[in-house]
């Protein structure tokens, strides 16, 4: 069967003709599948998709995001999640079912400007997203260096099973909190390490679509290629569980290419 790997496309570009299943960021026009975004197209047995290189974050249920508290009404906080919709965090999520605006001070719990790690629990075409901070590892982010990247680069920054971000964390002795919405907080005791981690993150953001990125990041971090990933010391980074509908990552496309070229064991 005909296959396409890594074709650069802009909206309207014809990717392939034939009876393929449209997966992401593509539509069928007559006998052709065309791209609806700027990105990297891939076609194979499972279908045709385009990994986008630009575009804002669109919320998905179960995504872990880092949001900024904006204002609050008497019943919920408005949270900026770097998307086209602001999210709501119900007061009950924090204070419990017997929340009372008269007794419980929302502003003291979460103030304007605070950052929270939250999970999206509801979102559809008819309403704004709703989040919770009740699970383990969610809640207010107390400290760290704040960075914003394009949400389309987050999968590449995480890497397959967290490999890219773990490489950065270990080399710089930092802990990197990543929201699917492109918001990132870096913590660490050593300010030089934090600076280096930020540089590595920026490099991944800018070069996410290029081959051999892993190598260049390792060079920046002064990490030898053969060093095995030591996952025992650091806790797993915050990664959204891979949904059934989650988009393929640029990492996956590149890794498959590396396997092909014999540079990496599958």
């Amino acid at each position, binding site marked *: 069967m005909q296959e396409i790997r890594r074709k*650069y496309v802009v*909206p309207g570009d014809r990717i392939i003709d034939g009876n393929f299943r449209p997966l992401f960021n593509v539509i069928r026009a007559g006998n052709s599948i065309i791209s609806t975004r*700027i990105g990297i197209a891939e076609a194979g047995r499972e279908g045709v998709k385009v990994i986008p290189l630009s575009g*804002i974050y669109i919320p998905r249920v179960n995504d872990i995001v880092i949001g900024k508290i904006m204002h609050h009404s008497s019943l919920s906080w408005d949270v900026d999640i770097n998307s*086209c919709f*602001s999210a709501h965090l119900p007061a009950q999520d924090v204070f419990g079912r017997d929340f009372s605006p008269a007794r419980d001070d929302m502003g003291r719990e979460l103030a304007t400007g605070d950052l929270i790690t939250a999970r999206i629990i509801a979102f559809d075409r008819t309403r704004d997203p709703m989040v919770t901070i009740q699970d383990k590892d969610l809640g207010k982010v107390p400290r760290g260096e704040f960075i914003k990247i394009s949400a*389309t680069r987050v999968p590449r920054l995480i890497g397959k099973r967290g490999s890219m971000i773990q490489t950065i964390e270990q080399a710089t002795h930092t802990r990197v909190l990543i929201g699917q919405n492109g918001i990132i907080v870096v913590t660490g005791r050593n300010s030089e390490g934090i600076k280096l981690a930020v540089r590595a993150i920026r490099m991944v953001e800018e070069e996410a679509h290029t081959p051999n990125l892993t190598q260049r990041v390792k060079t920046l971090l002064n990490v030898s290629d053969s060093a095995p990933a030591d996952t025992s010391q650091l806790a797993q980074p915050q990664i959204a569980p891979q949904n059934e509908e989650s988009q393929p990552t640029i990492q996956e496309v590149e890794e498959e290419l590396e396997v092909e070229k014999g540079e990496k064991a599958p």
Partner: protein
Amino acid sequence: MTQTRSLIDENGKRTDGRTGDQLREIKITVGVIKNADGSAFIEFGMNKIVAAVYGPREVHPKHMALPDRCVLRCRYHMTPFSTDTRKNPAPSRREVEISKVMREALEPSLMLEDYPRAAIDVYVEVLQADGGSRCAGITAASVALADAGINMRDIVSACAAGKVDDRIVLDINDTEDKEGDADMPVAYMPHLEQVTLLQLDGVLNEDQFNQCLDEAVKGCKMVYEVQRKALMQKYFGNETELKEEQ
């Protein structure tokens, strides 16, 4: 618009030296406005136009939101120093009309149903105008929309053709616009082969009408090549034409 002088000389050269089927020089730069979600700057002849896209984003006021699709808002505006005589910054009726036809030219290309209850704002600012500014504006706006990562069925390319000295010519300039016989701006989706904007200012017979339309569409296809190259350059740099690995 009656002519008082010849605008095409005996060698077929126009007032700016072009032949009848030549486009003016076009240059497009993508991503020029840092704050915008998508942007493009276009130089088309002496037109200098910047387009910025913000969106999809929240609609304010909330009651303006549509439940099943995105609201598209377009503004075409000329800066006071963009024209021969200084223009008052307040929107003129011409700008209001062009804003509307611009929106109607871009809307068919956008998959607005993917972003219900949100809004996309397209701002086109003319820094210098030189005949065909609405076409140049639409061209830049479509590039800015792609830069913003909005789902699109196709790019929109725009170009005008016109009648000058009784001949149909491509991409009329400022002088030809003012002193020629007819001006027909067209916007076109090159892959879907659909016309999304068509206006006529002037008098044409049926043959001339068909010829003019064909010429303008030809021009749109040439404009598309510049748009595509600009987007590829910004996103893929020198790896523009990566071969497919079959």
